[in-house]
């Protein structure tokens, strides 16, 4: 079988209520992302990139339209099912890492497997941390790690559940160039070696160009960049 559709979005709109009235952030978005593709979403600050990513990952409920993951309705499910589907399909890497401060590096990485009741969680977490070059930092707490190291732990954690789709919201935003490049290399390596679909929000044009496709977010609409 050739590429199957990992994500399908039809007529997605999202409106939020703020203290200044209703604000429509996403205004009818349609798109498809194939399995194993790497997609960059770019656009000016405040254009709604993070909002879209959050909806795609099922972290929030959209106002109208539909999102399908591997042809299964996703956005219309209740939180319980969405959480289960998240555990099954989705991994996430954040700009601000979001490691649990009370857990050691290895425990952070073990979490997704533990949530699934995997008995080999610790062994797998060790391998993953080894892959991201942190085998000497297993029992460190997040506040004992540098920003780059924390992001590597976050990536290891994102891949721990062997997700089919990895979302990354400005994964290098808080890092210097050298560390940023290391992170990017890791992401693409894992994308290639495991066939993971990669959806990444970034401000970095060079990084965007490394992806198979670039989507531009602007004024609530998404357009394909066909340069």
């Amino acid at each position, binding site marked *: 079988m050739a590429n199957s559709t990992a994500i399908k979005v039809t007529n997605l709109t999202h409106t939020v209520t703020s203290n200044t009235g209703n604000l429509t952030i996403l205004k009818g978005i349609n798109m498809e992302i194939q399995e194993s593709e790497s997609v960059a979403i770019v656009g000016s600050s405040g254009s709604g990139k993070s*909002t879209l990513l959050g909806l795609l990952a099922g*972290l929030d409920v959209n106002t109208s339209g539909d999102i399908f993951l591997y042809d299964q309705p996703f956005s219309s499910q209740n939180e*319980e099912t969405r*959480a289960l589907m998240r555990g099954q399909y989705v991994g*996430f890497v954040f700009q601000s890492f*979001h490691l649990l401060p*009370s857990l050691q590096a290895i425990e952070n990485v073990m979490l*997704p497997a533990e949530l699934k009741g995997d008995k080999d969680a610790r062994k797998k977490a060790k391998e993953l941390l080894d892959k991201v070059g942190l085998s000497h930092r297993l029992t460190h707490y997040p506040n004992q790690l540098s920003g780059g190291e924390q992001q590597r732990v976050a990536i290891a954690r994102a891949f721990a559940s062997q997700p089919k789709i990895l979302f990354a919201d400005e994964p290098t935003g808080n890092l210097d160039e050298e560390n940023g490049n290391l992170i990017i290399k890791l992401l693409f390596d894992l994308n290639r070696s495991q066939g993971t679909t990669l959806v990444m929000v970034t401000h970095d044009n060079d990084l965007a160009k490394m992806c198979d496709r670039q989507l531009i977010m602007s004024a609530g609409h998404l357009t394909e960049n066909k340069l």
Partner: protein
Amino acid sequence: MSFTFRLMLRDIRSGDLVTLLMALIISVSTVTSIGLFIDRLQLSFEQESANLLAADRLIRSDEGISNDWRVKAQDLGLQLAERTSFSTMMFANDALQLSQVSAVTDNYPLKGNFLVDDTLFGTGFAFNESPKTGEVWVSSRLASLLNIKIGDIVEVGDAEFSVAKYLVRDPGSSTSAFAISPRAVINLADLASTNVIIPGSRVRYSLLLAGARDELAQYEEWVTPQLKEGQRWRTPTQQGERIGDTIGRAESFLLLAGTLAVVMSGVAMALASARFVKRHLMQVAILKTLGATPKLLTKVFVQQLSVLFVAGALIGLAIGWGMQEIIASLLAGLMSTELPEPSISRLWLGASTGLVSMLVFCIPLMLRLIKISPLSVLQPNARIEQNTLFVYLIGFVGMYGLMCLYTNGFLLPSIMTVAILGISLLVAVIGWSIFKLGRSLTSGATSGWQIGLASLYRRLVPNLFQLLVFTLIIMLGLILVGVKSSLIADWQQQLPENAPNHYLFNVQSTQIDQINNETDNLNIERSDWYPMVRGRVTAVNETSVQELYPEERGEPELYERELNLTWSDTLGQGNELVSGDFNAEGLSVEQDVAKEANLSLGDELTINIGGNIVTLPITSIRTVDWGTMQPNFYLILPKSALQNYPANFVSSLFISEADAQPFYKTMSQFPTVSILNVGDVLKQIQTIIGQLSQAIQLVLFCILSAGALVLLASVRSTLEERLEEGALLRVLGARSALVRQALLIEFGALGLFSGLIAAIGAETCLYGLQVFVFNSEASFHPLLWLLGPLIGVCVISAIGIFASRTVLKVPPMLLLRGL
């Protein structure tokens, strides 16, 4: 090991669960220790009063005790003893003397001891036996009246007895006004041979019972319906009314203390839960992005809380038990008797307090926690809707319910709840205005003063909340201090050291001068002489009492028995006119009995005095302070109504231990005069009051310590922000002296204001408590207004600086990384 427990272990490592556990332990242990301690005190009071009754329960009867009653008591496994008391003539040599004889079984008394001596007018030692057959114990007064000594023979009716001991006190009859003749005790087995009890003699039979509470209650239920006229069921606390009153108030105090402990533990629980939830918001959001379902999270938290509860309750109960053991052993030296063991069954109180405060404070917050949107990881402002009002409402209702459960009533909890609501409002208004003022006074942040005062307004809501917690805790402490000191002052005033402890009855007017001379020679203080005539109220507003109260039961005290009547031109010591005119030609009635009989000014009472009938209107109503131990009367008649009857006189005196012997010797010149010694009862009351005062101080200390812990927890709950801010300030170049100064100012100001508001609140609450709960006069407490702000400033600054000492020591870099 399941996911829950692995998460839990990691949480314990981070200290967040520990805070929650600590709060739970504080809750459970304070409530447990105070509950258990109160229980022990209650048991101990019951025992002490039982000593005065010579039994746990007693049935008093004018006719012989029915055998069924004995059989039933034995069936229930109760101990039983009997006493038969009667007045009779005793003969020795050529003298004869009317005396009060008790015939008792071998195992009498069931509680307490006889006090006897081998020398005449000795002060006595406790003696654990009752007279053997053929023996008689006589009071020193009786011995001197009959001119007999140990080993001599006396006659009672047809039987002869040999004097074996001088009787100082018979535990069971020390307050019986019936027994004012000199006393003697014999064995019940000898009673029949005396042949003094013939049909129609005035005899009082008592069946004494002792045993476990449950069986006693069962027996009471069984026997009370069978009681006829002239038969009474007596419990220790009814015995001396004043003891009952004193203990009652002390119990109210301890109950109040316990209630406040419940409130404090609620506050501790709320604080810890809020902190826990705050620290876990992001964690839950992240877990959700990783695929944790709401169901799983609910399961995790429910399991965590269950484990937490079991651990906290067990540790709390153990600590609570230990604490009350420590309190009890500290008190042991001051107690005349050993405290009884606490009942294990009281433990449920502490455990259920922990459970309820966990349910009402933790669960609603946990539900909010579980509802957090996973979007928070992307958008920090996409938190959860703040259903705070609902959460606090649940907390309030829960606390109210707990307090009701604890006090078995609604009054105290209602007063406390209203007070807490009022204080919250006051704190909100005053706090907001003051913080705002502080803000406008300080622009720029260059000195510690300015930084400190400005930060009060900057973190307005958390600081207001903190102010409320400080205020509540200080207020609770002040209330306890206020109640404690007025309670103890009240007691001491009620029973001065030299309160009269003897009454002289049956004094003829011709003897008064002589007795006055003798007591003056001995330097004995004496009250005025009151003439006394016996009379009985037979009709009210021309309706006879029999018609008004066809049933014996429910008859007001005023009509129930023959009363001592007196006349007087002036209101006696301890009497206070409530309404009417004392000098009018009518009756003056004591307020409480008037209330009981539903009498008011103008009602007419018909009184039978030795066969003659007088009818008089009520012209005044008085209150009487029975604590003065002066002769006091329910009914005072106009002189004209009584002066033609033969009166005898009564007076009260204080006789110290040293005066006792010469006094009794002197009084043997007046064989017809009856002497009633209430010294034992008074001493008992004074001992109990002394113990209560000590106990109350200790309980107060315990609660205040728990309060300090809660304060510490409350400061710790805002520690993160303070740490962050302190570190930032230091990164920005502030010396740690400046940071410390700013913290000191901030906490000092919080402490000062909370102390002030707490004083306002405490004074208001004390008013309500004094008027509604303790039924005493309301009074003003200047001490609180000094103590409140002082404690506020000192304690809170100290706790604040102690808790945030890391802000000042740790390198700022480390702090910033950790946040």
